[in-house]
């Protein structure tokens, strides 16, 4: 506890390019961009596979494969290939990390919509895309948001790896602290990562309150 107080009360930790605000923003930037990129790939793919029932095997297999990839290993590999300096090498492993939970939950959510409901929707005269976006997506939304939330938490926690290849983010505090045996800084950095993960969790919980129909939320 004292260490945390030391960390946060030290004015040197708050200013300059290595200060808390800058590192926090860098961390947030990696995370948000990685999450958006993953969502841009995984949501359309999950919707399509879940809706049509096609590509199911591909979805499940690729999601499992991506899950098994070692994040740090990929990062090092990417850096070796493209060199240090730009931000985007760190995005690749983060995106790979975020795709599986989003993809699988979107797919399962859409595919799992009650067949009677699907039948009624077509029977009323909705066309395929209308059935998907007006019926299946609203019903699958809690699961889709769960997938996004899991991805966000993992990405926030894992974005610390950026520091390993000389990039910023909260991982720098952890690395630098370890390197200089100044554990106050390490613990402070870890604490900030936890706070950010909790904030992501809270943000998605709030989002599902707003976005999910009470009829779907309560029916579960």
């Amino acid at each position, binding site marked *: 506890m004292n260490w945390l107080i030391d960390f946060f009360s030290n004015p040197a930790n708050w200013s300059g390019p290595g200060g808390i605000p800058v590192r926090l923003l860098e961390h947030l930037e990696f995370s948000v961009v990685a999450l958006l990129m993953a969502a841009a790939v995984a949501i359309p793919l999950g919707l399509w596979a879940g809706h049509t029932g096609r590509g199911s095997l591909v979805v499940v297999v690729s999601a499992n494969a991506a899950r098994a990839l070692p994040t740090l290993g990929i990062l090092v590999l990417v850096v070796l290939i493209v060199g240090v300096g730009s931000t985007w090498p760190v995005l690749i492993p983060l995106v790979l990390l975020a795709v599986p939970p989003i993809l699988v939950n979107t797919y399962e959510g859409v595919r799992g919509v*009650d067949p*009677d*409901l699907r*039948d*009624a*929707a*077509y*029977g*009323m*005269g*909705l*066309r395929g895309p*209308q059935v998907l976006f007006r*019926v299946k997506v*609203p*019903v699958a939304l809690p699961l889709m948001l769960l997938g996004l939330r899991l991805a966000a938490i993992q990405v926030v926690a894992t974005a610390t790896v950026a520091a390993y290849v000389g990039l910023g983010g909260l991982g720098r505090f952890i690395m630098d602290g370890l390197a200089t045996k100044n554990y106050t800084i390490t613990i402070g950095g870890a604490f900030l990562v936890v706070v950010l993960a909790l904030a992501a969790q809270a943000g998605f919980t709030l989002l599902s309150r707003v976005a999910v*129909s*009470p*009829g*779907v939320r*309560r*029916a579960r």
Partner: protein
Amino acid sequence: MITFEGVTKRYDDGTVAVDDLSLEAPTGAITVFVGPSGCGKTTSLRMINRMIDATEGRVLLDGQDVREIDPPTLRRGIGYVIQQAGLFPHRKIVDNVATVPYLLGWDRKRARARAMELLERVGLDAGLARRYPFQLSGGQQQRVGVARALAADPPVLLMDEPFSAVDPIVRASLQDELLRLQSDLQKTIVFVTHDIDEAIKLGDTVAVLRVGGRLAQMAGPATLLTEPVDDFVREFLGRDRGIRRLSFIPAKDVRLEAAPADLVTDAAGRPLGWRADGGLLPYGTFNPERDSLRAALDAALLAANGTAVAVDEDGRVIGVVTREALDEVLGQYAARHTRPLPATGEDPRG
């Protein structure tokens, strides 16, 4: 009018669900498809709105082959009610009912006004409109399902076992409601059930299907009860066919007699009971204007002296029917069997 012309449906796995079905469902009437589980009722019904396409033959809607119409367009003009109601859980009841009007591009206000009107029509309180489906009972959900099917005022209504998931009392009231609606709206309705009593109660025409998707018999309910074509239909109809048939004979032709003095009434003329030494004995009533001969017979059997009491809409005594008078009409109808029994092979008990 809906016409099946030699319709066959063979599923990909080779199952023949419907075999060379030809029949007509007349405009403005209720046609019931009834038969044991797996006999192809659902399959037949769904070929009308192209949820399934026939393998052979044609289904015509007012003379036009349904295959010439793009399925979503076709379906928007045909109400469809299924067993589990299939309401959209994320939408309020009012918006569920307005589904097809929205699809047809009505503006929100008009679609919702129409939805409210229909909720009232199917006997639901306006207060339910703002609720979500999970907040309704099974019977209420089923009523919403019917309201939704009627929202855009389609001339045709397809109903697949719509009332089979609710308890018998609710089911009976939903059936009565449907008959009441139908007497106002005169839709062309095709109704699927495996419950022969429901078929007989609701159908203007009843098509009995047998497993393998073949039409066994198609007839009005009264004819079906007295003249089943074979053992299968006879067994499917079950017991008490003679008594059940009386439900289709109006009681208005029975001979009424003036009420005797020992029928005690209140000041308004409503019956209280039959006078006896120890007090009043039970009585039974029917309304000759509205009820069937079965109700008249039932009323006679309920009374201690075997005499049925005829009442008007307000429950006031307008006369009595003696057993002799009942016997006269029963005799007339019993004699009206038109078809002689087949010569061989069949159980002569009828």
